[in-house]
């Protein structure tokens, strides 16, 4: 009986700890959401805690009406889709040949890739290269330099190698070409890994900030993170929002900033639960090979 009681206390304690930490992870988001939905007077007079006060969508309206923020959102969605597609494609077509153990030159190529994981030119040589290629203030500077991740490549190669070889062999004996095998047999079996890596690439681009800060100076080409940084840290609002803000009495008020942050977070929140079941297996594959 005593043991049973002890067990129950233990269970409750474990659940309490996890609940507490989970709350710490989610409360900041809830707070931000309620700030963004509250009126700016309620925010300024500090009435807002976990529930919005005087609910209105004014802040969101202002964000949507701000052409610069909206354009930057559209640009970032477009850029993220393009980057994720290009990146996963090049990762797939590079990983597949590397699974062929008797491919001549395979080890040299693998070595060339692994070196890049441990040594790189660094920020400034990268910048000089992009500048010399004439890519500054061009969306290509946000697409090309980080197109292929060595880490993701190794994960995918490991995953491809873990598929049963007999499948490929029998297809080969039936006269299937390498491309047929890759696209008809290997890819359909690798969807969990490919979904995970696509998610990693997409999140990386969506959240990418440093390259945009360095390579992009034209406001038309600001990705959302850079735009958000300018808005929150430099209080830079474009004209429309300043007019909007002026009507409520302050420029880039807290609820407006909160709405902009939510605006940049919501797309991630939308795709995240759908992909969650995939990325756990993806991370575990990565862990096997370190």
């Amino acid at each position, binding site marked *: 009986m005593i043991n049973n009681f002890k*067990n129950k206390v*233990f*269970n409750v304690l*474990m*659940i309490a700890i*996890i*609940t507490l*930490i*989970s709350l710490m*992870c989610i409360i*900041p988001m809830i*707070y*931000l959401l309620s700030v963004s939905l509250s009126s700016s007077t309620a925010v300024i007079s*500090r009435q807002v805690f976990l529930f919005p006060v005087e609910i209105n969508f004014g802040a969101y309206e202002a964000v949507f009406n701000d052409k610069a923020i909206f354009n930057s959102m559209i640009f970032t969605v477009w850029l993220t889709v393009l980057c994720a597609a290009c990146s996963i494609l*090049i990762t797939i*077509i*590079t990983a597949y*040949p*590397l699974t*062929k153990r008797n*491919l001549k030159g395979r080890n040299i*190529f693998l070595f060339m*890739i*692994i070196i*890049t994981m*441990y*040594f*790189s*030119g*660094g*920020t*400034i*040589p990268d910048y*000089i*290269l992009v500048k010399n290629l004439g890519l500054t203030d061009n969306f290509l500077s946000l697409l*090309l330099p980080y*197109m292929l991740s060595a880490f993701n*490549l190794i994960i995918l190669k490991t995953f491809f190698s873990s598929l049963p070889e007999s499948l490929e062999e029998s297809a080969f004996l039936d006269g299937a*070409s*390498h491309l047929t095998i890759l696209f008809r047999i290997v890819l359909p079996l690798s969807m969990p890994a490919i979904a995970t890596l696509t998610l990693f690439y997409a*999140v990386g681009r*969506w*959240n*990418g*900030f*440093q390259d945009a800060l*360095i390579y992009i100076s034209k406001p038309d080409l600001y990705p959302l*993170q850079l735009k*958000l*940084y300018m808005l*929150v840290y430099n209080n830079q609002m474009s004209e429309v929002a300043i007019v909007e803000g002026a009507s409520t009495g302050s420029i880039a008020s807290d609820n407006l900033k909160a709405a902009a*942050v939510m605006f*940049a977070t919501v797309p*991630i*929140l939308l795709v*995240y639960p759908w992909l*969650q079941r995939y990325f756990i297996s993806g*991370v575990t594959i990565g*862990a096997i090979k*370190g």
Partner: protein
Amino acid sequence: MSDIISPVPDAIIQVDLKEIKKRKFIAYIKNNWILYLLLLPSIAYLIVFKYAPMYGVLIAFKEYNIFQTVWASPWNNFATFKEIFLMPDFWNAFKNTFVLNSLDMIIGFPAPIILAIILSEVYVKWFKKVSQTILYLPHFLSWVIIGSIALQLFAPESGLINLALNKIGVSPVQFLTDKWIWVGTYVFLGLWQSIGWNMIIYLAAIAGINQELYEAAVMDGAGRLRKIWHITLPGIKSTIIILLILAIGKMSQIGFDRPFVVGNSLVMEFSDVISTFVYRTGIQNFQYSIATAVGLFQSVIGLIFLLGTNYIADKLGEQGIW
């Protein structure tokens, strides 16, 4: 008599061998050219975007300006390195990089292990699922977003935390502007972002432990804590060691976004790290050679750390990283 056994002269055999090799080679290319074609884009990518910048590192050793090519610039006899080693700002950034990374490790390394063990002791399925979903979430937020949230939470006057502290009669805490407290904020935000995500690998390792061990322990009358201590922890020991080695290997490397966004001019004495120093001197002040040299210095230290820790791992009999 032996002549009869090999009626074909040696020369002809050699020609035949060559012929066979040639045919084999042609057959190999015929079967595999498509594989090389598939590799072509990434080879081009590596050469242009990875190896060309490595060549660009040479400007650390040269008197470089943007009107000249790297090759045409004159060598400067390590003058750049002599200059950076005399810069107090450089040493400060170097020190901060190590201090912040060490704190991250002391607090951020054990935390996910503990959390994973606690979570694995929870047997309510739906609760486990929901809490996992919430715990992984911060990993997917950018540092600009986390920094913006932190501003709203930690602001001295209007921030949520200080409002709550105010209600219980505590005077406002300068979470973001007092340099000593800022270090705590920095470490906390890192922990907040990564604890759930870093936990996944340990959860997988715990799930891989043989369940019969636990059943046997229950037979022997072991309690929950004893099972954790004698089965769970030894079961994930090798995972812990590998990840510890990886973490130590990355000690000299620091991302840009987190210190740049979370830091501010009031706490720069503590928040300026190598990556932000490189950005300031190179991109903002156009001192390309100095910034490149600092980056190179960091890369080399990082490489030494990584090879060193891998060597130690080898000696300890653990599987190396590669």
